[in-house]
Protein backbone atom coordinates (compact mmCIF):
# COMPACT_ATOMS: atom_id res chain seq x y z
CA UNK A 1 0.00 0.00 0.00
CA UNK A 2 1.10 3.52 -0.73
CA UNK A 3 1.33 6.10 1.98
CA UNK A 4 -1.08 8.99 2.01
CA UNK A 5 1.67 11.40 1.03
CA UNK A 6 2.68 9.36 -1.98
CA UNK A 7 -0.93 9.14 -3.07
CA UNK A 8 -1.33 12.92 -2.92
CA UNK A 9 1.89 13.43 -4.82
CA UNK A 10 0.73 11.13 -7.57
CA UNK A 11 -2.55 12.98 -7.75
CA UNK A 12 -0.78 16.33 -8.07
CA UNK A 13 1.54 15.07 -10.80
CA UNK A 14 -0.94 13.19 -12.96
CA UNK A 15 -4.47 14.32 -12.31
CA UNK A 16 -4.62 18.01 -11.37
CA UNK A 17 -4.32 19.60 -14.80
CA UNK A 18 -6.78 17.30 -16.61
CA UNK A 19 -9.29 17.49 -13.77
CA UNK A 20 -9.09 21.27 -13.47
CA UNK A 21 -9.73 21.66 -17.20
CA UNK A 22 -12.55 19.11 -17.08
CA UNK A 23 -14.15 20.85 -14.11
CA UNK A 24 -13.92 24.36 -15.54
CA UNK A 25 -14.99 23.45 -19.06
CA UNK A 26 -17.63 20.82 -18.38
CA UNK A 27 -18.79 20.52 -14.78
CA UNK A 28 -19.00 24.21 -13.89
CA UNK A 29 -21.02 25.25 -16.98
CA UNK A 30 -23.24 22.20 -16.53
CA UNK A 31 -24.23 22.96 -12.95
CA UNK A 32 -24.29 26.69 -13.50
CA UNK A 33 -26.63 26.04 -16.40
CA UNK A 34 -28.96 24.04 -14.20
CA UNK A 35 -28.87 26.81 -11.60
CA UNK A 36 -29.75 29.42 -14.24
CA UNK A 37 -32.89 27.57 -15.25
CA UNK A 38 -34.39 28.55 -11.89
CA UNK A 39 -33.60 32.24 -12.30
CA UNK A 40 -34.53 35.07 -14.63
CA UNK A 41 -31.05 35.06 -16.17
CA UNK A 42 -30.81 37.23 -19.29
CA UNK A 43 -27.33 36.29 -20.40
CA UNK A 44 -25.72 38.96 -18.20
CA UNK A 45 -27.14 38.80 -14.72
CA UNK A 46 -29.61 36.77 -12.73
CA UNK A 47 -31.51 38.93 -10.24
CA UNK A 48 -34.36 36.70 -9.07
CA UNK A 49 -35.26 33.13 -8.38
CA UNK A 50 -38.30 32.21 -10.41
CA UNK A 51 -38.76 28.58 -9.40
CA UNK A 52 -40.00 26.43 -12.25
CA UNK A 53 -41.24 29.34 -14.40
CA UNK A 54 -38.75 28.65 -17.20
CA UNK A 55 -39.76 25.01 -17.40
CA UNK A 56 -43.44 25.99 -17.35
CA UNK A 57 -42.74 28.47 -20.17
CA UNK A 58 -40.96 25.74 -22.13
CA UNK A 59 -43.80 23.29 -21.62
CA UNK A 60 -46.30 25.91 -22.79
CA UNK A 61 -44.22 26.68 -25.85
CA UNK A 62 -45.84 24.98 -28.80
CA UNK A 63 -42.75 25.33 -31.00
CA UNK A 64 -40.66 23.54 -28.36
CA UNK A 65 -43.01 20.56 -28.27
CA UNK A 66 -43.11 20.44 -32.04
CA UNK A 67 -39.32 20.47 -32.16
CA UNK A 68 -38.97 17.83 -29.44
CA UNK A 69 -41.53 15.60 -31.16
CA UNK A 70 -39.79 16.01 -34.49
CA UNK A 71 -36.46 15.17 -32.87
CA UNK A 72 -37.86 11.96 -31.34
CA UNK A 73 -39.24 10.91 -34.73
CA UNK A 74 -35.94 11.75 -36.38
CA UNK A 75 -34.00 9.77 -33.78
CA UNK A 76 -36.33 6.79 -34.15
CA UNK A 77 -36.15 6.79 -37.96
CA UNK A 78 -32.38 7.31 -37.97
CA UNK A 79 -31.61 4.66 -35.36
CA UNK A 80 -33.66 2.02 -37.18
CA UNK A 81 -32.53 2.84 -40.71
CA UNK A 82 -28.87 3.58 -39.97
CA UNK A 83 -28.43 0.29 -38.15
CA UNK A 84 -30.47 -1.77 -40.61
CA UNK A 85 -28.47 -0.38 -43.53
CA UNK A 86 -25.19 -0.52 -41.63
CA UNK A 87 -25.73 -4.15 -40.69
CA UNK A 88 -26.79 -5.01 -44.24
CA UNK A 89 -23.63 -3.39 -45.59
CA UNK A 90 -21.56 -5.31 -43.05
CA UNK A 91 -23.05 -8.62 -44.22
CA UNK A 92 -22.40 -7.57 -47.81
CA UNK A 93 -18.76 -6.62 -47.38
CA UNK A 94 -17.91 -9.72 -45.33
CA UNK A 95 -18.77 -11.91 -48.32
CA UNK A 96 -15.44 -12.67 -50.04
CA UNK A 97 -16.00 -10.40 -53.06
CA UNK A 98 -13.55 -8.80 -55.40
CA UNK A 99 -12.70 -5.23 -54.47
CA UNK A 100 -14.13 -5.48 -50.96
CA UNK A 101 -11.77 -2.84 -49.66
CA UNK A 102 -12.87 -0.42 -52.31
CA UNK A 103 -16.52 -1.04 -51.41
CA UNK A 104 -15.88 -0.49 -47.70
CA UNK A 105 -14.17 2.78 -48.49
CA UNK A 106 -17.09 3.98 -50.60
CA UNK A 107 -19.56 3.23 -47.81
CA UNK A 108 -17.37 4.72 -45.11
CA UNK A 109 -16.16 7.97 -46.66
CA UNK A 110 -19.31 10.10 -46.01
CA UNK A 111 -18.50 9.63 -42.35
CA UNK A 112 -15.20 11.46 -42.57
CA UNK A 113 -16.83 14.68 -43.61
CA UNK A 114 -18.52 17.10 -41.26
CA UNK A 115 -22.28 17.65 -41.15
CA UNK A 116 -22.08 21.20 -42.46
CA UNK A 117 -20.29 20.24 -45.66
CA UNK A 118 -22.51 17.19 -46.16
CA UNK A 119 -25.59 19.36 -45.65
CA UNK A 120 -24.41 21.83 -48.27
CA UNK A 121 -23.60 19.04 -50.73
CA UNK A 122 -27.08 17.56 -50.35
CA UNK A 123 -28.72 20.94 -50.54
CA UNK A 124 -27.37 21.04 -54.08
CA UNK A 125 -28.43 17.44 -54.77
CA UNK A 126 -32.02 17.93 -53.59
CA UNK A 127 -32.37 21.45 -54.91
CA UNK A 128 -30.67 21.28 -58.30
CA UNK A 129 -29.60 17.83 -59.38
CA UNK A 130 -32.54 15.59 -58.48
CA UNK A 131 -35.29 17.81 -60.00
CA UNK A 132 -33.37 17.81 -63.30
CA UNK A 133 -32.86 14.06 -63.00
CA UNK A 134 -36.59 13.60 -62.38
CA UNK A 135 -37.45 15.66 -65.43
CA UNK A 136 -35.03 13.86 -67.73
CA UNK A 137 -35.77 10.35 -66.54
CA UNK A 138 -39.49 10.76 -65.93
CA UNK A 139 -39.26 9.50 -62.33
CA UNK A 140 -41.65 11.91 -60.59
CA UNK A 141 -40.58 11.39 -56.97
CA UNK A 142 -37.79 13.98 -56.93
CA UNK A 143 -39.50 16.50 -59.19
CA UNK A 144 -40.10 19.04 -56.44
CA UNK A 145 -37.24 20.23 -54.27
CA UNK A 146 -37.61 18.00 -51.19
CA UNK A 147 -36.31 20.72 -48.91
CA UNK A 148 -39.26 23.03 -49.54
CA UNK A 149 -41.89 20.83 -47.92
CA UNK A 150 -41.94 19.93 -44.22
CA UNK A 151 -42.61 16.25 -44.71
CA UNK A 152 -40.12 15.57 -47.47
CA UNK A 153 -37.51 17.82 -45.86
CA UNK A 154 -37.72 15.64 -42.76
CA UNK A 155 -37.08 12.52 -44.83
CA UNK A 156 -34.30 14.31 -46.68
CA UNK A 157 -32.56 14.75 -43.32
CA UNK A 158 -33.08 11.08 -42.49
CA UNK A 159 -31.70 10.00 -45.88
CA UNK A 160 -28.56 12.09 -45.45
CA UNK A 161 -28.15 10.82 -41.89
CA UNK A 162 -28.37 7.21 -43.05
CA UNK A 163 -25.91 7.95 -45.84
CA UNK A 164 -23.52 9.56 -43.36
CA UNK A 165 -23.66 7.20 -40.39
CA UNK A 166 -24.32 3.75 -41.87
CA UNK A 167 -20.68 3.37 -42.94
CA UNK A 168 -19.46 3.90 -39.38
CA UNK A 169 -21.88 1.32 -38.01
CA UNK A 170 -20.83 -1.00 -40.83
CA UNK A 171 -17.25 -0.91 -39.49
CA UNK A 172 -18.45 -1.82 -36.00
CA UNK A 173 -20.62 -4.67 -37.29
CA UNK A 174 -17.85 -5.95 -39.58
CA UNK A 175 -15.47 -6.09 -36.60
CA UNK A 176 -18.07 -8.02 -34.61
CA UNK A 177 -18.84 -10.43 -37.45
CA UNK A 178 -15.15 -11.16 -38.00
CA UNK A 179 -14.69 -11.72 -34.26
CA UNK A 180 -17.04 -14.69 -34.16
CA UNK A 181 -15.14 -17.98 -34.00
CA UNK A 182 -15.36 -19.89 -37.29
CA UNK A 183 -15.77 -23.22 -35.43
CA UNK A 184 -19.11 -22.11 -33.99
CA UNK A 185 -20.51 -21.27 -37.41
CA UNK A 186 -19.11 -24.40 -39.02
CA UNK A 187 -20.55 -26.49 -36.20
CA UNK A 188 -23.96 -25.01 -36.89
CA UNK A 189 -23.65 -25.83 -40.62
CA UNK A 190 -22.73 -29.41 -39.76
CA UNK A 191 -25.83 -29.57 -37.59
CA UNK A 192 -27.78 -28.60 -40.69
CA UNK A 193 -28.39 -24.89 -40.13
CA UNK A 194 -29.11 -22.75 -43.20
CA UNK A 195 -27.31 -19.43 -43.73
CA UNK A 196 -30.30 -17.57 -42.34
CA UNK A 197 -30.51 -19.79 -39.28
CA UNK A 198 -26.79 -19.51 -38.59
CA UNK A 199 -27.16 -15.73 -38.76
CA UNK A 200 -30.20 -15.62 -36.48
CA UNK A 201 -29.25 -18.20 -33.87
CA UNK A 202 -25.46 -18.01 -33.81
CA UNK A 203 -24.13 -14.74 -35.20
CA UNK A 204 -26.71 -12.25 -33.94
CA UNK A 205 -26.64 -13.33 -30.25
CA UNK A 206 -22.83 -13.41 -30.28
CA UNK A 207 -22.58 -9.86 -31.62
CA UNK A 208 -25.24 -8.31 -29.41
CA UNK A 209 -22.59 -6.11 -27.85
CA UNK A 210 -21.99 -4.44 -31.22
CA UNK A 211 -25.70 -3.62 -31.36
CA UNK A 212 -25.61 -2.08 -27.89
CA UNK A 213 -22.78 0.20 -28.97
CA UNK A 214 -24.10 1.07 -32.42
CA UNK A 215 -27.60 1.82 -31.20
CA UNK A 216 -26.19 4.01 -28.44
CA UNK A 217 -23.89 5.90 -30.80
CA UNK A 218 -26.59 6.47 -33.44
CA UNK A 219 -29.06 7.58 -30.82
CA UNK A 220 -26.66 9.98 -29.17
CA UNK A 221 -25.50 11.46 -32.47
CA UNK A 222 -28.97 11.95 -33.88
CA UNK A 223 -30.28 13.52 -30.68
CA UNK A 224 -27.46 16.04 -30.85
CA UNK A 225 -27.66 16.60 -34.62
CA UNK A 226 -27.08 20.26 -35.33
CA UNK A 227 -24.68 20.78 -38.24
CA UNK A 228 -26.67 18.78 -40.75
CA UNK A 229 -29.95 20.35 -39.69
CA UNK A 230 -28.50 23.84 -40.01
CA UNK A 231 -26.81 23.30 -43.36
CA UNK A 232 -29.46 21.17 -45.07
CA UNK A 233 -32.79 22.76 -44.13
CA UNK A 234 -31.86 25.51 -41.68
CA UNK A 235 -35.16 24.61 -40.00
CA UNK A 236 -37.12 25.69 -43.08
CA UNK A 237 -39.81 25.81 -44.28
CA UNK A 238 -41.00 28.18 -41.54
CA UNK A 239 -39.01 26.58 -38.72
CA UNK A 240 -40.94 23.33 -39.10
CA UNK A 241 -37.86 21.13 -39.47
CA UNK A 242 -35.95 22.52 -36.51
CA UNK A 243 -34.49 19.73 -34.41
CA UNK A 244 -34.12 20.36 -30.70
CA UNK A 245 -30.49 21.44 -30.89
CA UNK A 246 -31.10 24.16 -33.43
CA UNK A 247 -34.25 25.18 -31.58
CA UNK A 248 -32.35 25.69 -28.32
CA UNK A 249 -29.60 27.58 -30.12
CA UNK A 250 -32.09 29.99 -31.72
CA UNK A 251 -34.14 30.40 -28.57
CA UNK A 252 -31.03 31.58 -26.72
CA UNK A 253 -28.80 33.30 -29.24
CA UNK A 254 -31.47 34.29 -31.76
CA UNK A 255 -34.25 35.53 -29.48
CA UNK A 256 -32.23 36.20 -26.34
CA UNK A 257 -34.38 33.94 -24.12
CA UNK A 258 -31.36 32.57 -22.30
CA UNK A 259 -33.08 31.10 -19.25
CA UNK A 260 -35.88 29.45 -21.24
CA UNK A 261 -33.40 28.17 -23.81
CA UNK A 262 -31.26 26.70 -21.05
CA UNK A 263 -34.25 24.99 -19.46
CA UNK A 264 -35.00 23.42 -22.85
CA UNK A 265 -31.38 22.29 -23.12
CA UNK A 266 -31.68 20.68 -19.68
CA UNK A 267 -34.87 18.91 -20.75
CA UNK A 268 -33.00 17.71 -23.83
CA UNK A 269 -30.21 16.36 -21.60
CA UNK A 270 -32.72 14.52 -19.40
CA UNK A 271 -34.44 12.95 -22.42
CA UNK A 272 -31.09 11.77 -23.80
CA UNK A 273 -30.00 10.41 -20.42
CA UNK A 274 -33.23 8.48 -19.88
CA UNK A 275 -33.44 7.05 -23.39
CA UNK A 276 -29.75 6.10 -23.36
CA UNK A 277 -30.05 4.36 -20.00
CA UNK A 278 -33.14 2.40 -21.02
CA UNK A 279 -31.57 1.40 -24.33
CA UNK A 280 -28.29 0.25 -22.81
CA UNK A 281 -30.01 -1.73 -20.04
CA UNK A 282 -32.38 -3.41 -22.53
CA UNK A 283 -29.77 -4.37 -25.10
CA UNK A 284 -27.24 -5.42 -22.42
CA UNK A 285 -29.73 -8.09 -21.39
CA UNK A 286 -29.54 -9.63 -24.85
CA UNK A 287 -25.78 -9.98 -24.71
CA UNK A 288 -24.40 -13.50 -24.36
CA UNK A 289 -21.85 -14.13 -21.64
CA UNK A 290 -18.83 -16.03 -22.89
Amino acid at each position, binding site marked *: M*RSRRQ*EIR*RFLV*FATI*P*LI*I*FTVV*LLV*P*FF*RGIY*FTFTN*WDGFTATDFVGFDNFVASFNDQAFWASLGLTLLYVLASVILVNAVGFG*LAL*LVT*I*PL*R*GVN*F*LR*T*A*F*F*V*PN*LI*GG*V*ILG*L*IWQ*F*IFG*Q*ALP*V*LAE*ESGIPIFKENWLLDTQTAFWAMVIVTVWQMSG*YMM*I*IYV*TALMGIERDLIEASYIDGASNAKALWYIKLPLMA*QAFTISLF*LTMRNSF*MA*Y*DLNLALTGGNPYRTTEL*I*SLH*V*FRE*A*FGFGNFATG*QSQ*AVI*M*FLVIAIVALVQVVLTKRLEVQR
Partner: protein
Amino acid sequence: MKRAKRINLFFFIFASVLAVFYAFPFLLVLLNSVKGKREIINSPLAWPAEFRFDNFIAAITKMDYWTALGNSLIITVIAVSAIIITSSMLAYYLARSKTKFSAATFLILVASMIVPFQALMIPFVGLFGQNGINLPLNQITICIFYVGFGVALSTFLYHGFISNIPYELDEAAAIDGASPFTTFRKVILPMLGPVTATVSIINGLWIWNDFLLPSIVLSDTDQKTLPLKTFVFYGKYTSDYGLAMAGLVLSVIPILIFYFVMQRKIISGISAGAVK
Protein backbone atom coordinates in the same frame (compact mmCIF):
# COMPACT_ATOMS: atom_id res chain seq x y z
CA MET B 1 -19.83 -24.42 -56.49
CA LYS B 2 -21.18 -22.84 -59.66
CA ARG B 3 -24.27 -21.65 -57.84
CA ALA B 4 -22.18 -20.03 -55.13
CA LYS B 5 -20.19 -18.20 -57.79
CA ARG B 6 -23.31 -16.86 -59.43
CA ILE B 7 -24.66 -15.68 -56.10
CA ASN B 8 -21.37 -13.93 -55.37
CA LEU B 9 -21.50 -12.22 -58.76
CA PHE B 10 -25.01 -11.01 -57.95
CA PHE B 11 -23.85 -9.61 -54.61
CA PHE B 12 -20.85 -8.02 -56.25
CA ILE B 13 -23.02 -6.16 -58.76
CA PHE B 14 -25.48 -5.18 -56.04
CA ALA B 15 -22.70 -3.86 -53.81
CA SER B 16 -21.11 -1.94 -56.67
CA VAL B 17 -24.42 -0.24 -57.53
CA LEU B 18 -24.81 0.71 -53.88
CA ALA B 19 -21.25 2.06 -53.80
CA VAL B 20 -22.04 4.26 -56.80
CA PHE B 21 -25.10 5.58 -54.95
CA TYR B 22 -22.92 6.38 -51.93
CA ALA B 23 -20.36 8.16 -54.09
CA PHE B 24 -22.93 9.91 -56.29
CA PRO B 25 -23.20 13.18 -54.30
CA PHE B 26 -19.41 13.60 -54.23
CA LEU B 27 -19.05 12.83 -57.91
CA LEU B 28 -21.76 15.31 -58.80
CA VAL B 29 -20.19 18.09 -56.76
CA LEU B 30 -16.80 17.35 -58.28
CA LEU B 31 -18.27 17.36 -61.78
CA ASN B 32 -20.03 20.66 -61.26
CA SER B 33 -17.06 22.38 -59.69
CA VAL B 34 -15.44 22.70 -63.10
CA LYS B 35 -18.52 24.15 -64.82
CA GLY B 36 -19.69 27.71 -65.28
CA LYS B 37 -22.58 29.23 -63.32
CA ARG B 38 -25.20 28.84 -65.99
CA GLU B 39 -24.16 25.37 -67.01
CA ILE B 40 -24.63 24.13 -63.43
CA ILE B 41 -28.18 25.39 -63.20
CA ASN B 42 -29.22 24.23 -66.65
CA SER B 43 -27.56 20.84 -66.73
CA PRO B 44 -26.22 19.74 -63.35
CA LEU B 45 -26.05 16.11 -64.44
CA ALA B 46 -24.23 16.50 -67.74
CA TRP B 47 -20.53 15.97 -68.35
CA PRO B 48 -18.81 19.39 -68.27
CA ALA B 49 -18.60 21.07 -71.69
CA GLU B 50 -15.08 22.12 -70.81
CA PHE B 51 -13.00 21.78 -67.67
CA ARG B 52 -12.39 25.21 -66.19
CA PHE B 53 -10.52 25.71 -63.00
CA ASP B 54 -11.23 29.40 -62.45
CA ASN B 55 -13.88 28.43 -59.86
CA PHE B 56 -11.14 26.96 -57.72
CA ILE B 57 -8.87 29.95 -58.04
CA ALA B 58 -11.71 32.31 -57.13
CA ALA B 59 -12.88 30.08 -54.26
CA ILE B 60 -9.38 29.87 -52.76
CA THR B 61 -9.13 33.65 -52.51
CA LYS B 62 -12.74 34.24 -51.45
CA MET B 63 -12.79 31.71 -48.62
CA ASP B 64 -9.19 32.49 -47.69
CA TYR B 65 -8.54 28.79 -48.08
CA TRP B 66 -4.93 28.51 -46.93
CA THR B 67 -5.55 30.49 -43.75
CA ALA B 68 -8.64 28.44 -42.93
CA LEU B 69 -6.81 25.19 -43.65
CA GLY B 70 -3.91 26.31 -41.45
CA ASN B 71 -6.29 27.23 -38.63
CA SER B 72 -8.03 23.87 -38.79
CA LEU B 73 -4.70 22.06 -38.80
CA ILE B 74 -3.26 24.04 -35.88
CA ILE B 75 -6.35 23.59 -33.72
CA THR B 76 -6.69 19.88 -34.50
CA VAL B 77 -3.01 19.08 -33.91
CA ILE B 78 -2.67 21.08 -30.68
CA ALA B 79 -5.98 19.91 -29.23
CA VAL B 80 -5.39 16.25 -30.06
CA SER B 81 -1.86 16.33 -28.60
CA ALA B 82 -3.16 18.00 -25.45
CA ILE B 83 -5.93 15.41 -25.13
CA ILE B 84 -3.39 12.57 -25.51
CA ILE B 85 -1.08 13.97 -22.82
CA THR B 86 -3.76 14.91 -20.28
CA SER B 87 -5.97 11.86 -20.61
CA SER B 88 -3.17 9.28 -20.66
CA MET B 89 -1.79 10.76 -17.43
CA LEU B 90 -5.18 10.98 -15.80
CA ALA B 91 -6.00 7.42 -16.85
CA TYR B 92 -2.68 6.20 -15.43
CA TYR B 93 -3.44 7.82 -12.10
CA LEU B 94 -7.01 6.48 -12.01
CA ALA B 95 -6.03 2.96 -13.07
CA ARG B 96 -3.25 2.66 -10.50
CA SER B 97 -4.82 4.27 -7.48
CA LYS B 98 -7.37 2.26 -5.61
CA THR B 99 -8.95 5.02 -3.53
CA LYS B 100 -12.65 5.83 -3.34
CA PHE B 101 -11.86 9.26 -4.72
CA SER B 102 -10.42 7.88 -7.92
CA ALA B 103 -13.32 5.46 -8.38
CA ALA B 104 -15.78 8.34 -8.01
CA THR B 105 -13.80 10.52 -10.42
CA PHE B 106 -13.86 7.76 -13.00
CA LEU B 107 -17.61 7.38 -12.61
CA ILE B 108 -18.18 11.12 -13.08
CA LEU B 109 -16.03 11.10 -16.21
CA VAL B 110 -18.00 8.22 -17.72
CA ALA B 111 -21.35 9.80 -16.83
CA SER B 112 -20.30 13.12 -18.35
CA MET B 113 -20.10 11.51 -21.78
CA ILE B 114 -23.86 11.78 -22.30
CA VAL B 115 -23.96 15.52 -21.56
CA PRO B 116 -24.71 17.19 -24.88
CA PHE B 117 -22.74 20.32 -25.74
CA GLN B 118 -26.08 22.07 -26.22
CA ALA B 119 -26.66 21.91 -22.46
CA LEU B 120 -23.38 23.76 -21.90
CA MET B 121 -23.18 26.30 -24.67
CA ILE B 122 -25.51 28.89 -23.15
CA PRO B 123 -23.77 29.07 -19.74
CA PHE B 124 -20.50 28.90 -21.68
CA VAL B 125 -21.05 32.26 -23.26
CA GLY B 126 -21.92 33.84 -19.93
CA LEU B 127 -19.01 32.20 -18.15
CA PHE B 128 -16.18 32.73 -20.61
CA GLY B 129 -17.44 35.65 -22.70
CA GLN B 130 -17.12 39.39 -22.12
CA ASN B 131 -19.31 39.34 -19.00
CA GLY B 132 -17.52 36.40 -17.46
CA ILE B 133 -13.80 35.86 -17.16
CA ASN B 134 -13.40 37.23 -20.71
CA LEU B 135 -11.05 34.66 -22.19
CA PRO B 136 -9.28 35.72 -25.37
CA LEU B 137 -11.22 34.09 -28.20
CA ASN B 138 -8.32 32.39 -29.92
CA GLN B 139 -6.95 29.00 -30.85
CA ILE B 140 -5.44 28.27 -27.44
CA THR B 141 -8.76 28.87 -25.71
CA ILE B 142 -10.65 26.60 -28.07
CA CYS B 143 -8.02 23.88 -27.61
CA ILE B 144 -8.51 24.02 -23.84
CA PHE B 145 -12.25 23.64 -24.41
CA TYR B 146 -11.64 20.60 -26.59
CA VAL B 147 -9.52 19.05 -23.85
CA GLY B 148 -12.37 19.60 -21.40
CA PHE B 149 -14.89 17.89 -23.68
CA GLY B 150 -12.60 15.17 -25.02
CA VAL B 151 -10.83 14.11 -21.84
CA ALA B 152 -13.63 11.84 -20.57
CA LEU B 153 -13.86 9.46 -23.54
CA SER B 154 -10.10 9.38 -24.07
CA THR B 155 -9.38 8.72 -20.39
CA PHE B 156 -11.91 5.91 -20.55
CA LEU B 157 -10.12 4.34 -23.53
CA TYR B 158 -6.67 4.68 -21.92
CA HIS B 159 -7.98 3.40 -18.60
CA GLY B 160 -9.15 0.14 -20.15
CA PHE B 161 -5.73 -0.41 -21.73
CA ILE B 162 -3.59 0.59 -18.74
CA SER B 163 -5.59 -1.66 -16.40
CA ASN B 164 -4.29 -4.60 -18.44
CA ILE B 165 -0.63 -3.62 -18.04
CA PRO B 166 0.81 -5.69 -15.16
CA TYR B 167 1.44 -3.69 -12.01
CA GLU B 168 4.76 -5.54 -11.55
CA LEU B 169 6.26 -3.28 -14.21
CA ASP B 170 5.56 -0.22 -12.06
CA GLU B 171 7.03 -1.94 -9.03
CA ALA B 172 10.15 -2.97 -10.89
CA ALA B 173 10.67 0.60 -12.06
CA ALA B 174 10.10 1.90 -8.52
CA ILE B 175 12.67 -0.53 -7.13
CA ASP B 176 15.13 0.75 -9.73
CA GLY B 177 14.53 4.19 -8.26
CA ALA B 178 12.24 5.73 -10.88
CA SER B 179 9.81 8.43 -9.76
CA PRO B 180 6.12 7.94 -10.64
CA PHE B 181 6.44 10.38 -13.53
CA THR B 182 9.55 8.67 -14.92
CA THR B 183 7.78 5.32 -14.62
CA PHE B 184 4.90 6.71 -16.62
CA ARG B 185 7.08 8.32 -19.28
CA LYS B 186 9.65 5.54 -19.73
CA VAL B 187 7.64 2.40 -19.00
CA ILE B 188 3.91 2.98 -19.51
CA LEU B 189 3.76 5.61 -22.26
CA PRO B 190 5.76 3.59 -24.82
CA MET B 191 3.24 0.77 -24.48
CA LEU B 192 0.21 2.93 -25.21
CA GLY B 193 0.72 3.17 -29.00
CA PRO B 194 -2.44 1.33 -30.15
CA VAL B 195 -4.81 3.31 -27.88
CA THR B 196 -3.07 6.55 -28.75
CA ALA B 197 -3.82 5.83 -32.42
CA THR B 198 -7.49 5.27 -31.58
CA VAL B 199 -7.66 8.35 -29.39
CA SER B 200 -6.04 10.58 -32.02
CA ILE B 201 -8.31 9.38 -34.82
CA ILE B 202 -11.57 9.63 -32.91
CA ASN B 203 -10.73 13.06 -31.50
CA GLY B 204 -9.04 14.26 -34.69
CA LEU B 205 -12.08 13.59 -36.89
CA TRP B 206 -14.39 15.18 -34.33
CA ILE B 207 -12.34 18.36 -33.89
CA TRP B 208 -11.53 18.74 -37.58
CA ASN B 209 -15.21 18.62 -38.53
CA ASP B 210 -16.63 20.44 -35.51
CA PHE B 211 -18.81 23.41 -36.31
CA LEU B 212 -20.85 24.47 -33.28
CA LEU B 213 -18.04 25.23 -30.82
CA PRO B 214 -15.83 27.21 -33.24
CA SER B 215 -18.91 29.06 -34.48
CA ILE B 216 -19.46 30.31 -30.93
CA VAL B 217 -15.83 30.83 -29.91
CA LEU B 218 -14.00 32.04 -33.02
CA SER B 219 -15.48 35.36 -34.06
CA ASP B 220 -12.37 36.79 -35.73
CA THR B 221 -12.44 35.89 -39.44
CA ASP B 222 -8.64 35.33 -39.50
CA GLN B 223 -9.07 32.49 -37.03
CA LYS B 224 -12.02 30.69 -38.59
CA THR B 225 -11.67 27.00 -39.40
CA LEU B 226 -12.49 25.28 -42.67
CA PRO B 227 -16.09 24.21 -41.85
CA LEU B 228 -16.93 27.77 -40.76
CA LYS B 229 -15.44 29.27 -43.90
CA THR B 230 -17.32 26.90 -46.19
CA PHE B 231 -20.58 27.89 -44.58
CA VAL B 232 -20.06 31.63 -44.51
CA PHE B 233 -18.99 31.55 -48.12
CA TYR B 234 -22.04 29.53 -49.16
CA GLY B 235 -24.47 31.93 -47.53
CA LYS B 236 -22.99 34.87 -49.37
CA TYR B 237 -22.68 33.39 -52.83
CA THR B 238 -25.55 30.93 -53.04
CA SER B 239 -26.36 32.26 -56.49
CA ASP B 240 -22.89 31.37 -57.69
CA TYR B 241 -22.98 27.60 -57.56
CA GLY B 242 -19.64 27.24 -59.33
CA LEU B 243 -17.81 28.87 -56.44
CA ALA B 244 -19.83 26.97 -53.87
CA MET B 245 -19.06 23.62 -55.52
CA ALA B 246 -15.35 24.42 -55.75
CA GLY B 247 -15.43 25.49 -52.09
CA LEU B 248 -17.00 22.17 -51.09
CA VAL B 249 -14.42 20.19 -53.06
CA LEU B 250 -11.62 22.17 -51.43
CA SER B 251 -13.05 21.49 -47.97
CA VAL B 252 -13.34 17.77 -48.58
CA ILE B 253 -9.90 17.21 -50.15
CA PRO B 254 -7.68 17.43 -47.02
CA ILE B 255 -9.64 14.85 -45.06
CA LEU B 256 -9.79 12.51 -48.05
CA ILE B 257 -6.01 12.69 -48.46
CA PHE B 258 -5.64 11.97 -44.76
CA TYR B 259 -7.97 9.00 -45.07
CA PHE B 260 -6.15 7.44 -48.00
CA VAL B 261 -2.79 7.80 -46.27
CA MET B 262 -4.02 6.45 -42.93
CA GLN B 263 -6.81 4.15 -44.12
CA ARG B 264 -5.82 1.08 -42.17
CA LYS B 265 -5.17 2.96 -38.93
CA ILE B 266 -8.48 4.79 -39.16
CA ILE B 267 -10.57 1.67 -39.66
CA SER B 268 -8.85 -0.28 -36.90
CA GLY B 269 -8.91 2.79 -34.63
CA ILE B 270 -12.65 3.12 -35.00
CA SER B 271 -13.40 -0.52 -34.41
CA ALA B 272 -11.07 -0.64 -31.40
CA GLY B 273 -12.68 2.51 -29.96
CA ALA B 274 -16.18 1.11 -30.32
CA VAL B 275 -15.49 -2.26 -28.77
CA LYS B 276 -14.27 -0.72 -25.53
